[in-house]
């Protein structure tokens, strides 16, 4: 483990979130202790309802925890959001159909008041980062699903936040496209050295991408295991056939099963 205590970018202590619903309170998150260091790639995995998305939304200040403390970049999550500390990638690309790809990437830049020249320069840069050069003038609905999702990653990268929060960004794509985007994401991470929080329900995806894998379990949503990856940073796709990879995947599966077991 890297020295996460001194350079923690995201730090949660005893974090809990309870939703009040018509059928009574739902404990979406309980007692979450986690600290994520700078430059880490942390995956959150678990069955639906385990709170992995909720945790990410708490970090993004889209939800507000009911108990515990959460700091992002040393400030509260809300202050971090106001300081535009992170880029968020949703499950669907969610591009605005009335804007071109370039226009969609420009959206956060307009809101954050970047100069016109700076906007153009950044759009060109992130478009090439996600391999979409030449598609800036297209409309989202003229692109494939994989290209749309790449554009939405470019949109999250455009304003150079240190943290990238990704909520099952490739969940809706087929496996072949997903493999390629995973590979590209790793390269992007190596180039930009961002801190990435990544929600997924795919074990191979989590193992392939992460430096750490957080296994979560539902009712109440909580962390059941944190697995340190021993894989090297350089990861070709065929690393998934190595015994090391399979061993880690096995540990994740065991963790998921254990979390499931004590619920029954």
């Amino acid at each position, binding site marked *: 483990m890297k020295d996460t205590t001194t350079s923690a970018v995201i730090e949660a202590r005893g974090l809990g979130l309870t939703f009040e619903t018509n059928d009574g309170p739902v404990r979406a998150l309980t007692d979450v202790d986690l600290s994520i260091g700078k430059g880490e790639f942390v995956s959150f995995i678990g069955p639906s309802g385990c709170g992995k998305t909720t945790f990410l*939304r708490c970090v*993004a*200040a*889209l939800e507000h925890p009911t108990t515990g403390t959460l700091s992002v970049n040393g400030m509260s999550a809300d202050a971090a*959001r*106001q*300081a*535009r500390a*992170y*880029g*968020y990638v*949703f*499950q*669907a690309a*969610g591009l*605005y*159909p*009335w804007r071109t790809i370039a226009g969609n990437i420009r*959206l*956060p830049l*307009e*809101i*954050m008041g970047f100069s016109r020249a700076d906007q153009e320069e950044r759009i060109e840069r992130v478009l090439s980062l996600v391999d979409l050069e030449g598609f800036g003038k297209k*409309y989202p*609905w003229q692109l494939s699903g994989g290209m749309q999702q790449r554009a939405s990653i470019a949109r999250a990268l455009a304003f150079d936040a240190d943290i990238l929060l990704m909520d099952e960004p490739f969940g809706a794509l087929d496996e072949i496209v997903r493999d390629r985007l995973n590979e590209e994401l790793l390269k992007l991470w190596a180039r930009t050295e961002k801190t990435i929080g990544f929600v997924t329900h795919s074990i191979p995806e989590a193992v392939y991408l992460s430096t750490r894998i957080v296994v979560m379990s539902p009712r109440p949503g909580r962390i059941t295991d944190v697995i340190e990856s021993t894989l090297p940073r350089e990861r070709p796709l065929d690393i998934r056939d190595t015994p090391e990879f399979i061993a880690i995947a096995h540990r994740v599966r065991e963790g998921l099963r254990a979390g499931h077991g004590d619920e029954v």
Partner: protein
Amino acid sequence: MSGAAISPGWIVAAVIAAGAAFVDLRLAMLLALWLGAWFVNARLSRLKGPLPRWLVPAIFGLTLLALWELAVRLFGISPVILPAPSAIAARIAGSLPILWADFVQTALKGALTGYVLGCGAAVAVAVLIDRSAFLQRGLLPVGNFVAALPIVGIAPIMVMWFGFDWQSKAAVVIVMVFFPVLVNMVAGLKATEPMQRDLMATYHASYWQTLWKLRFPAALPFLFNGLKIATTLALIGAIVAEFFGSPIVGMGFRINASIGQLSLDMIWAEIAVAALAGSAFYGLVGFIERRVTFWHPSQRR
């Protein structure tokens, strides 16, 4: 059942037409014209491509006009009951200055002024009440209710308040178009997905930034629905309001005055102008809609 061969249905129809010839030769002629045109259309409608798309309805419309003309001539229908299309066309050609003046008075001054003011007010109110869920919950049911009422009935009141000229017509139009546009615009402003709003939250976008960059564009397809409904309402309002009092110009006035003189060709001429104005107005709004909301799934080709 309908292949290349002539189906039994057609034979029966032809026999009926022939039988009608024994009763009344004129009736048989009309029936023959109708069947002939229908036969052509039935054939044409099986073809693919853009040509039949407009040729078939055009033939249908022209056939109706021809039947009308023929019926009036053959049966000698009095012009105070139903003037022939040719007589109406002659009247239109001979009264262009009058028709133009009526059009300017009713469609441009009355309907268009009221339309712009009413729709503008509705959009403004929709944005104003956008932040208050309380006001929306109160205003929307009231708006939906009022939109179903016979609002043209306020015409006599508006004529009393604003006089005989176009101002009172514009006032009627404002009230008529206001609620449909308001209801659509409020619905449109709600039409964004939670994910899109969350995205704006992650950018720490202000209320007005979110409104202008996300919710207003997303509301446009709904707004145009309201705007298109309102075009027809505006013309109806302006014309009907003139039935309750007007200066001696205007489409509604002309229709009302021509009734007294039994000059039905003039009424039909005004109706033709109204139809043209209505289609053109709707077409214009539809054209703007296609240009502005080209990205919406319903507009994509």
